[in-house]
């Protein structure tokens, strides 16, 4: 793959992949490693992009698979060494207003409490604007599963955010 192609891919899609990975892993160093792993993989095997219609969706799918691999590896390691993940990384930009800042903090914490599979669907729906069909294809899950994961995830977020939301509305 030509260097300009990789650079173009990075400039066009790295932000979306970064946000997805950060929300999925909740860990900045892991996100960086995964983002680098993804672009290194693409540089090594440019044929992966051959015939791909939607580059963004393809990169997000690749990122999701890499993140799952990392979680599996980490899961095995942590089981044996009893290591715990550090402080979750902030996933939203800092807010100027205190109320908005509090809401974002609460939202980030609530997102961290829902299962990663639900979080992935919620992220792709809310912040990537994908349809359930696209999400199902991207995550290789049935359409109904994608919809139900979104519903369950959103219900939990609503429960967690209700007091704060009512207060600052």
């Amino acid at each position: 793959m030509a260097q300009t192609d990789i650079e173009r891919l990075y400039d066009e899609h790295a932000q979306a992949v970064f946000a997805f990975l950060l929300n999925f892993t909740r860990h900045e160093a892991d996100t960086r490693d995964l983002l680098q792993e993804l672009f290194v993989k693409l540089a090594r095997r440019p044929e992966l992009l051959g015939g791909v219609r939607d580059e963004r969706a393809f990169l997000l799918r690749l990122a999701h698979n890499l993140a799952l691999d990392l979680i599996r590896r980490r899961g095995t390691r942590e089981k044996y060494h009893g290591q715990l993940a550090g402080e979750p990384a902030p996933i939203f930009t800092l807010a100027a207003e205190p109320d908005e800042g509090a809401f974002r903090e609460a939202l980030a914490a609530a997102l961290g409490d829902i299962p990663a599979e639900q979080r992935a669907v919620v992220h792709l729906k809310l912040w990537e604007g994908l349809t359930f069909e696209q999400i199902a294809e991207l995550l290789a899950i049935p359409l109904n599963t994608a919809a139900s994961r979104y519903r369950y995830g959103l219900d939990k977020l609503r429960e967690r955010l209700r007091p704060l939301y009512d207060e600052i509305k």
Partner: protein
Amino acid sequence: MNPDELEKRLERQPLRQVPSAWRDQILSAARQASRSEHAPRTTHHVGSRPSLLSTLHHQLSTLLWPHPVAWAGLAAVWVVILGVNLTTRDAAPLVARHSSPLSPQVFMAFQAQEQLLNELLGPPEASVADRPKPPLSQPRSEGRREMVMV
């Protein structure tokens, strides 16, 4: 709280930007990987197809990775089974090998014992098959008739 209202509010939350310093680092790593990937192929391999070993390695990694502990356990069980099988298979021919060759001394001793036994027992008697068979016993009624006549 209206569901649509919450979703709209969540959608408006601005996500963090990817750190700008990462761009150069990641692209540099990708460039390096691309160079190292293509350099050996042009010098050593004529074609661009991956070797059989690397394909096999990739396929095995994909297959075994999800449950490495389970696969390792299964492999260990097979090694134990193979070990037990080899041990038992080797033991049987050993016994046969030790027992089969008869040394000349043992053979001579065996012959001497047989000769001594023959001397002690004398010539062999007529076999059971050659002996005259006893007359068939008469029916009980015949016997009674003889007694009456006597």
